[in-house]
């Protein structure tokens, strides 16, 4: 396990949407997937994962369905909805704008001022 970073507030929803947009996942799977796609850099606090999932489901951004897990257990699988996909696109674009703006700001040298 490499060095992990703390999540910025408001980014958890985005990451969950991203994770379930790749393929349907159960809650624990979301946790693993985010860790995996972030190259083990992001660690989700386990206690806040489920309230976030429930909130997204309540907002109809993700949908849930009960299914079989890899080891044949009943598990609740989340998939992204059309509205969720739209939200993910918007948030990704927003994030990218913000990130590049911050990066540009941080790159500034004294000559450019």
């Amino acid at each position, binding site marked *: 396990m490499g060095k992990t970073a703390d999540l910025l507030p408001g980014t958890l929803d985005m990451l969950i949407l991203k994770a379930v947009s790749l393929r349907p996942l159960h809650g624990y799977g979301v946790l693993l997937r985010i860790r995996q796609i972030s190259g083990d850099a992001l660690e989700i606090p386990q206690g*806040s994962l*489920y*309230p976030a999932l429930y909130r997204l489901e309540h907002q109809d951004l993700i949908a849930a369905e009960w299914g079989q*897990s890899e080891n044949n257990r009943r598990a609740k699988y989340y998939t992204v909805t059309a509205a969720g996909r739209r939200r993910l696109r918007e948030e990704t674009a927003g994030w990218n704008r913000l990130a590049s703006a911050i990066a540009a700001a941080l790159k500034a040298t004294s000559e450019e001022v």
Partner: protein
Amino acid sequence: MLRRFRSLFRVLTGRRDFEARMTEELRFHMEQYTCDLVRSGVRPEEAGRRARMEFGSVNSVKGDCREARGLHLFDEFLRELRYAARLLRKTPGFTVTALLTLAVCLGANLTIFAVIDSVLLRPLPFPEPGRLVTIFNTYPKAGVERDGSSLTNYYERRGRIPAFSSLAIYRYDTAIIGEAGTTEREPVARVSPEFFSTLGAGPRMGRAFTEEETTYQTDSVAILTDAYWRQRCNADPHAIGSQIRVDGVPRTVIGVLPPGFRFLSSEARLYFPLSSRPEDRMPLQRHHGGNVIQTIARLKPGATLGQAQSQIDTQNATLEADDPQARMMADAGFRSVVVPLHADHVAAIRPTLLLLQAGVLALLLIGAVNLVNLLLIRAGGRVKELAVRQALGASRRYVVSEVVVETTMLTLAGGLLGLAVGAGGIRLLAVLGAGRLPLGGGIAFDARLALAALAAAIVMGIVLAAPIAWFNLRRPLGNALQSESRGGSSGRAAQILRHSFIVSQTALAFMLLAGAGLLGLSLKRAMGVSPGFRPDHILTGQISLPWKNYRDRAARLAFVETLLDKIGHQPGVLSAGVASNMPLSGKSGKSAARVKGHILRPGESPRGHYAYWVGGDYFGALGFRLRAGRFLTAADSRRTERVCVVDEDFARYYWPDSSALGQRLFEGSDEGVDAEAFTIVGVTGRVKQAGLTDDTAQGAIYYPYVFRDDSNIFIVARTGLPPESLGLTLQKVVRQIDPDLPLNDLQSMETRIADSLAARRSPALLAGLFSAIALLLTAIGSYGVLSYAVAQRRREIGVRMALGARPEQIRSQFFSLALRLLAYGTILGVIGAWLAGRAMQAVLFHVPALNLAILAGAAGVMGAVSVVAGLLPAHRAAKISPMESLAGQ
């Protein structure tokens, strides 16, 4: 937003599922994580511990999940509900009192509102009922307020008044239906062809009447109501084209009306065309309405009542221009008035209903004040508890919502009980004859009313919560926590509030009591009025002679003579007579008469008088008083001389200083040839014609029966037996003479008189009932508040008694408080009673707004009740033992 609601709704409906699945999902997570930890080399027991640690508190995660779903509000609400239920269970005395108060008050309101709803509020069951109007002729200066319309009016108006899209006339009647021996008299309506299209509701099967069917030669068609079709035709789908026998003549059924069809309060079960002869439609007949034919019309979309009225006025003016009677009609104040159909139909009963609704609202107010007082007292007992909870962080919002939940729960439960009370009340009203009110047939307890009642209960819960929430939030926390007694001195404002509530309650109850007294006195005075004849031991009934067999006067007279002869020979019959109408029958039989030689003063018009055509020993049977001359006898119908009898009002109007005997008069408004004049041979005492409370001295004329052209006759028989026992005998006698003739409407005269007072008796009874409840509520209220005052000051009383105060002093202190509240309440109540009495003048009979006896009586009753309610707590205060009260704290 909608989506979230749906999600919340889904979760609420499957709440148990939601919890189970959430638990399962979280357990799955833990197990997977534990497995993964074990796989990565952690020892199993260590893995479980670490998984739990990293996950954090499962309960708080669950709480967060519920909140994410919007469930926390619901949970909080449930918690408050449980808390409120627990509090209410802990004080059963309070809860039961409150529930009963609410049930009675809301139930009484529901009952009266059901009547108001049916009679005043619910629109008539026709499309766009607001556009339906009625038009009637009025001749106020001749003493004829309402004279319906004439056929001439109808033929002159239809199609010529631009503000109306349609205009029709109708006339209520009865007809004898069926084959010989099995005939029945049925209420029917005769209507013009546009009647149904004006209403916007026509036959469900078949067709409406046509223009060609309005003459006597071509009118043998009928339209059946659904009820008649079901009962008499066995709902035969091929009934159209079949024949029924009406007054001995076959008519073809051409239509069947839809099930819900009912025109105003009409009892009509069959509809026939309103036929007439061409000469009945001539200008000379324009003022011959006689209040028999009525007009309805439908305003064109966008047209107003005002436009219609001015168009009618203009037309009347144009027509009257070349009318020889015009001058006379103008002197009589003639006008044709256009009024909304619904409002006109219920105009007479409206003030009474509104009065009753005001009465029950006052009752509700008393009940609400009672509840607020009781709730305030309860809140007073929980000051400390609330203060502690607020100090521990309960928000103001929470304190308020807790009160609202509690009071609303209470009022809703009371409202549910109130539904039962209301249903019972509506039953009671049916017994009191509410079904006979205009549109009273529609009074029913339905889902709409129930919902309205529950909505009112919820609103009441919120309103009741306001003063309690204010009380709970008002005080500074520190004070409440420090003060060691229950209320402490900071309850001063609350005490004033409680006492002013008692005062207002007393005032309202006093008002109700005085109002009920006024209605009762008014009823008593009405019942005390002599009808002008002896109403005991009289049986009355109605017969309608069909035109087919009784075409001319001779045939009708022959029937009447045979009938009276046979009735006179029945055992127990003392005397019998017939008449075209009867006092208190509800039918106003006014018509014009012209006295020979009477010169109309300027502005005076020929007067409308009650006119009766009587046969047999009518006067003797009813027990009229004779003032001068003689009564008419059976022989007067056989003789050729025209004679008549008038009443003393008539005689006094025309001959204030001389005798009426020997004077002559003409039927109708014109002076005719001498041969047509009737000579007055007798003057009777005054008889109440339209009702016992009718004070207008309109005058009446009695003609011999033979001069009457009408098929409807009333029979009156005086007997030595209980009058009802004679009914079967009379019916048998009539059938013996003509097996086709049913004798209906058999009632004793005393029943008729009692029925004529129903519009006074029922409101008086209800008002009496309401004020009894109000008294009880006020007593409960005063008792509760005074008891509380005693309980609150136990310590003070104990100290004072320990210092030597005598029990009598304590007792009189509290008792005088009760008397003070009573006095203030009574003073306000007198003012209120005066205002109420003034508002009630329209429904009172010979009773002024302020009646000293009634005020004194109300004050006496109020005082007695308040004294009892005040004595008990005062007595208890005097019995407080100083030791106990001081040790008890």
